[in-house]
C-alpha cells in the first residue's frame, strides 16, 4: 500500500486493491454527486463513469464541490474530472454529457452506482437498471420544505439497494403516490432549495456505505441500508422502515428476472 493510504489501513488487508479495482458510476454530479466524487478520489478509487449533461451556473457555486468562479459555463463533468485527476493522476474517467438512459452501456459495467438525482421517476429507473445488472446502488437526496409560519424543514436520505434485498419500493421510499404526484406536477416544479452541508453529510454517509460494501471493514454488511437525515437537528439515523421490514426478500425485482428483458409472446 502506498504511504498515502496508510491512515486508512484499518479498512483491512487488500482493501486498497478492492477500492482500486472497483468501477464506480456517479449519475448526477451536482451538489451531492460532486461531494461523492471528491471523497472517492481521496480514498483512491481509480475507475469512474460520470453522467451529467449540465454546465456550471453561478447559482451552483453555493454547493458544487470543486467548482470555481471561472468554471461558470463549463461542463460539470469537467469540474469533476479535474478534481479526480488532481488526486488520482492515473484514474480512468469516462464522462458522459447525456442522461444515462441514452448511454447506458458504460453504467452496466459499474460495480456500484451512486444516484444523485432529483426525481422519484429517475430513481425508480436507475434502481431497476441496477437490479437487472446486479449492481449495488446507493441513492442520496435531500429536500427543504418551506412552510409559511414554521422554520423550513431539511431532510434527506441515503439508501443502499442491493440485488435480492428489499428495494426502494419495499422500503416505502418510492411509492405509486409519489410517482403519480410527480407526474402530475411535471413542468411545474421550480428549482429546489439546495445548500452544501447536508449534501456533504449525505454524500459522506453514502461513500461510507460504499467503502464498507467493498472492504467489509465493519465485519457487517447489511442490505438494504436506509439512513434518514434530519437537517434541522443534524442527525443521521436508521430509518424505522429499515428496522421493521416485514420481509427480507424483494418482490419487485426477483433474481430470476435479471439480465436482458424477457418478452413473452402471448
Amino acid at each position, binding site marked *: 500500500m502506498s504511504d498515502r493510504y496508510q491512515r486508512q489501513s484499518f479498512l483491512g488487508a487488500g482493501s486498497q486493491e478492492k477500492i482500486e479495482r472497483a468501477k464506480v458510476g456517479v449519475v448526477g454530479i451536482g451538489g451531492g454527486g460532486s461531494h461523492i466524487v471528491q471523497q472517492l478520489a481521496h480514498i483512491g478509487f481509480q475507475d469512474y463513469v460520470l453522467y451529467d449533461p449540465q454546465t456550471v451556473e453561478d447559482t451552483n457555486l453555493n454547493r458544487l464541490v470543486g467548482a470555481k468562479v471561472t468554471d461558470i459555463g463549463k461542463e460539470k463533468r469537467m469540474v469533476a474530472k479535474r478534481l479526480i485527476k488532481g488526486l488520482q493522476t492515473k484514474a480512468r474517467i469516462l464522462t458522459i454529457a447525456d442522461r444515462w438512459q441514452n448511454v447506458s452501456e458504460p453504467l452496466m*459495467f459499474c460495480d456500484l452506482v451512486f444516484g444523485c438525482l432529483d426525481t422519484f421517476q429517475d430513481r425508480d429507473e436507475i434502481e431497476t437498471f441496477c437490479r437487472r445488472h446486479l449492481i449495488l446502488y446507493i441513492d442520496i437526496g435531500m429536500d427543504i420544505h418551506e412552510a409559511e409560519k414554521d422554520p423550513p424543514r431539511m431532510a434527506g436520505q441515503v439508501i443502499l439497494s442491493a440485488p435480492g434485498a428489499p428495494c426502494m419500493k419495499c422500503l416505502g421510499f418510492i411509492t405509486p403516490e409519489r410517482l403519480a404526484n410527480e407526474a402530475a406536477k411535471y413542468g411545474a416544479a421550480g428549482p429546489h432549495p439546495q445548500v452544501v452541508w447536508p449534501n456533504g453529510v449525505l454524500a459522506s454517509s453514502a461513500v461510507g456505505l460504499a467503502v464498507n460494501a467493498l472492504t467489509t471493514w465493519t465485519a457487517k454488511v447489511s442490505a438494504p441500508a436506509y439512513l434518514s437525515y434530519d437537517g434541522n437537528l443534524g442527525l443521521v439515523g436508521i430509518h424505522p422502515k429499515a428496522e421493521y421490514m416485514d420481509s427480507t426478500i424483494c418482490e419487485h425485482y426477483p*433474481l430470476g428476472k435479471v439480465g436482458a428483458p424477457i418478452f413473452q409472446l402471448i
Partner: protein
Amino acid sequence: MQLTLRIPKYVLEQARQDLARPHSFAFERVGFFRCRPTIQPKLVVISGYDAVPDGEYMFDSTAGACIGATAIQSALQRILTHGSGQVHVHWHEHDGPTGPSRTDLRDQPRLVQSFQNVDETLPHGIVILSNTHAWGVLLLPGTKRFQEIKKISVVSGGIEFL
C-alpha cells in the same frame, strides 16, 4: 469492456454448500449456474443454481465427477424452459487462483457446445471455484470460441471480486 460475470451472493453460497457435500463415489460434485445475457454481450449475470441429484452421477475412475445423460438432459431442458444459459460449475478445494485441469478441458467444452446447439442466443460456459477465487470461460451468443471471464464479482450488500 472486459467480459464480466456477476453472481448474487446467495446463489454462490447455495452452490458452495451443494458442491461441498460428499458423494458416495464421486470425488467432486458439479452443478449448473443459470445465466442470463444482458443487452451488452460482455456482461453476463447469474440468476440461479441447480444441483445435480446424487443419482445422476456416473462412476468414472478417470474423472473427479462424471454426470450422466439425465443430468445433461435436465440442463438442456432448463435452457428451453427458463430462457437461461447453463454454466457448468465445480469446486477445486484450495485457496488462491484456480483453473481447469486436463480432465476439465477434456470434457466440459463439448458439453457447453451442446448447450449452445440448443440455444445459441444465450451465453453458456464453465466456472471453477476455489475457496477464495474463481476462473471461468463463456461461449457468447454468435461466437464459437470460449472467452475467459476477466471479472467475476459476487454481489449482495457487499461486493466481492473472485
